[in-house]
C-alpha cells in the first residue's frame, strides 16, 4: 500500500453547461520517504491538485488516500507551503510560527513550544528577524518563515506548491539547498509542485509531468537516479541529468505543440465591405 494514493481523481468546477473539468484521471502513488516533483505549465491545474491532496478541496470523483485513509479536510500530518507565502501580515515571524506550533502541540507547555518555535526559526536562519513583520521581509525570507511554519507542526508529509516560484534565481538556488538539507535530516515524504524542470530534477527522486488542463492528467514518470547529495554545478555535466532533462522538456514541448495544433477553434470573420458615407453627409 502506498503512503499517498490518488485513485482516478477528477475535479470539475462550475455546473451544467459551464462545467470545466480541470483534472481528470489522475493516478499517483507516493511511497513513504520519497521526494516527488510534479512539473507543469502554469494554469495546468497544479494548485487544484495540491489542494486536493492537502484537503482544502475534495475531488468530484475518485479518492485521495493518505496512509490508506481517505482524506477529509486538512490535517497536521500534511504540512503545506503555499506559493504566495500566506503569512499573516499582522503577526511577527515568531508569532506566525507560534500559531502553528500552538495548534499542533496544544498539550505541551509554554516553554516547550517556545523552544520549538525558536528552533525552527533558527533552522531557516531567521533568528535575527524574529520580531519583524512579514512586510519588512524579502520574498526569500518570507518563504523561509512559511517553511518554518509548516515544518514546526511536525508533519509526516510536506506539500510544496511552487514554493520558490516568485523568487529570483539566486535566492531560489539557496532555498532549494536549504529545503533539501531539512528534508535530508528527517526524510519526510515530500511532494513538490513546480514549473521549473531543473529544480525538479535537482530535488526529487521522481518527476511526473502534468499535462495541461482542462482535463489535465499526469504523464509518464521519469526516475532520477542521481546520487544524493547532488552538486548543482556538477549536475550540468552529468549525462544522466542531461538525458532526463531533455526528455522531460521534449515531452512538455510536445504536449504544448500538440495542444496548439489540436485547437479546433476557427474564428469566422464576417464578410464586410467598407461603405462610403461621404455622399450621405453631403445631401
Amino acid at each position: 500500500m502506498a503512503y499517498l494514493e490518488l485513485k482516478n481523481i477528477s475535479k470539475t468546477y462550475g455546473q451544467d453547461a459551464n462545467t470545466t473539468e480541470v483534472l481528470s484521471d489522475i493516478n499517483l502513488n507516493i511511497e513513504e520517504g520519497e521526494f516527488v516533483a510534479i512539473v507543469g505549465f502554469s494554469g495546468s491545474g497544479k494548485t487544484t491538485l495540491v489542494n486536493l491532496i492537502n484537503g482544502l478541496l475534495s475531488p468530484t470523483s475518485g479518492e485521495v488516500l493518505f496512509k490508506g485513509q481517505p482524506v477529509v479536510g486538512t490535517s497536521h500530518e500534511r504540512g503545506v507551503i503555499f506559493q504566495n507565502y500566506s503569512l499573516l501580515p499582522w503577526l511577527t515571524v515568531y508569532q506566525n510560527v507560534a500559531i502553528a506550533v500552538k495548534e499542533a502541540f496544544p498539550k505541551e507547555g509554554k516553554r516547550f513550544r517556545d523552544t520549538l518555535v525558536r528552533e525552527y526559526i533558527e533552522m531557516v536562519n531567521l533568528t535575527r528577524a524574529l520580531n519583524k513583520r512579514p512586510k519588512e521581509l524579502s520574498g526569500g525570507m518570507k518563504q523561509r518563515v512559511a517553511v518554518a511554519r509548516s515544518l514546526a507542526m511536525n508533519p509526516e508529509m510536506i506539500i510544496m506548491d511552487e514554493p520558490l516560484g516568485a523568487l529570483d534565481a539566486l535566492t531560489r538556488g539557496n532555498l532549494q539547498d536549504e529545503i533539501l538539507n531539512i528534508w535530508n535530516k528527517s526524510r519526510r515524504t515530500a511532494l513538490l509542485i513546480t514549473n521549473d524542470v531543473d529544480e525538479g530534477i535537482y530535488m526529487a527522486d521522481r518527476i511526473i509531468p502534468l499535462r495541461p488542463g482542462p482535463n489535465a492528467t499526469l504523464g509518464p514518470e521519469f526516475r532520477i537516479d542521481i546520487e544524493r547529495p547532488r552538486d548543482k554545478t556538477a549536475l550540468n555535466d552529468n549525462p544522466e541529468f542531461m538525458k532526463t532533462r531533455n526528455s522531460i522538456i521534449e515531452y512538455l514541448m510536445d504536449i504544448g505543440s500538440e495542444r496548439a495544433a489540436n485547437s479546433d477553434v476557427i474564428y469566422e470573420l464576417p464578410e464586410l465591405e467598407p461603405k462610403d458615407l461621404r455622399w450621405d453627409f453631403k445631401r
Partner: protein
Amino acid sequence: MSDKLIKTMRFIGLGFLEPIIRLTKGEEPNKNLILILKKIVAPIASVFLFLLIWQSSSSALFNIEATYRIEKAMNEQGKEAAYAMKLCIASGAVSCQPNTLPSPSQVKVSFYKLLEDHKIINADKKAFKEKTAELNEKREAEGKDAIVYTGRPSFVDQIITSIKTVFAGFLLAIFIAVPIGVIIGLSDTLRSSFNWLIQILKPVSPVVWLLLVFMIVKTLTKDSDTDSAFIISFISVGLCSMWATLVNTAMGVSTVDQDFINVAKVLKLGPIQKVFKVILPSSLPLIFTGLRITLSVAWMVLIAIELLAQSPGLGSFVWEEFQNGANDSNSKIIVAMFVIGIIGFLLDRIMLTIQKFVSFNKNEGS
C-alpha cells in the same frame, strides 16, 4: 534624535511641523523653506482670507440691517427718530444694534465672555458645595438625598456633556455593530437575510430615531424618576451612527483574503481561534474605517438630537441662544459652531491615530 521626533509628530498628526524641525537642524534649507511655505504659511493665509471674507460680508449685512432700521424709523416716527436711530447705531449702544451675522471680532468677544461666564459659574458651584457640605453630611446621615447644584450649566459644562453623550453613543454603536457585523459577515445566509433590513434602516433620519427611542424609553422609565434625556439622546446617537460600522465590519469579515482562510484551515484553527486570530485582524482596517465614519456621524447627529431632545449639551445651547435672541446670541452660536467643528476634527484625528496604531498595514489612512 530629530528623526524620532518627526516620527512621533507624524504619528500624532502633526506631520506638518516636520520642515520646521528640519530647518532648525539646518537640513536642506531651500527645500524646507518651500515646504514651510506650502504646508504652514499657505494654510494660515487661507484662514486669513476666510476671516477677511467673513468680516466684509458681516459688515455688508450689518449695513443692510442698519439702513432698514433707519428707514423704518423714518417712515413710522419721522425724521428726528431716524436721526436718533442713526446716532444710536453709530454709538454702538446695545439697545439698538442690528441683529445679523456677527463679525469675527464680536465672536471673539463672545468667546471670552463665555469663558468668563464659566469661571463665574464654577466659583458659584464651589461656594455652593462648601456651603452645603455640612448640611449634606447631616442629610446623608439621616438617609436623605444630598442637595445638588441646580444652577445654569456653563458653556464648558455643555461641551463636556456633549462629549460624554457622544462617547456613550459611540460605545453603544461599537457594542451593537461590531459583533453583529462579524456574525453577519461570517455567514452568507445571515447576510442576505438581514440585508434588506439594514438597507431600509440605514437611511432613516436621526430625528425619527430620536422619536422611536423616545417612545420606548418613555414607557420603560415610567415608574423611575431618572433623567431620561441623556439616555434618549445617547441611544439615538448610537442607533444613527452604528450603520457605517455594521456594514464595514460585515464587508471586512466577508472579504477576508482566501489565502488567510486557507492558512487557518491548514493550521486547523478552531472556529473561535479563526475569528480572533485571522478574520478579525485582517478586517481591522475596514472596521476602523467604519468606526471613524461612525464617530463623525455620531458627533454630527448629536447636535441635532440634543437640540430636539432638550438634553443638556451643545445642541441645546445653540437652540437656547437662538430662541433667546439677545444681542450677543448670534455670536455665541458662531462660537459654538467653531467649537463643534474643532472637536469633530480632533475626534477624527484621535481615531486616525488609534487606527494607525492597531492596523497591520501602517501605510493606510491619510
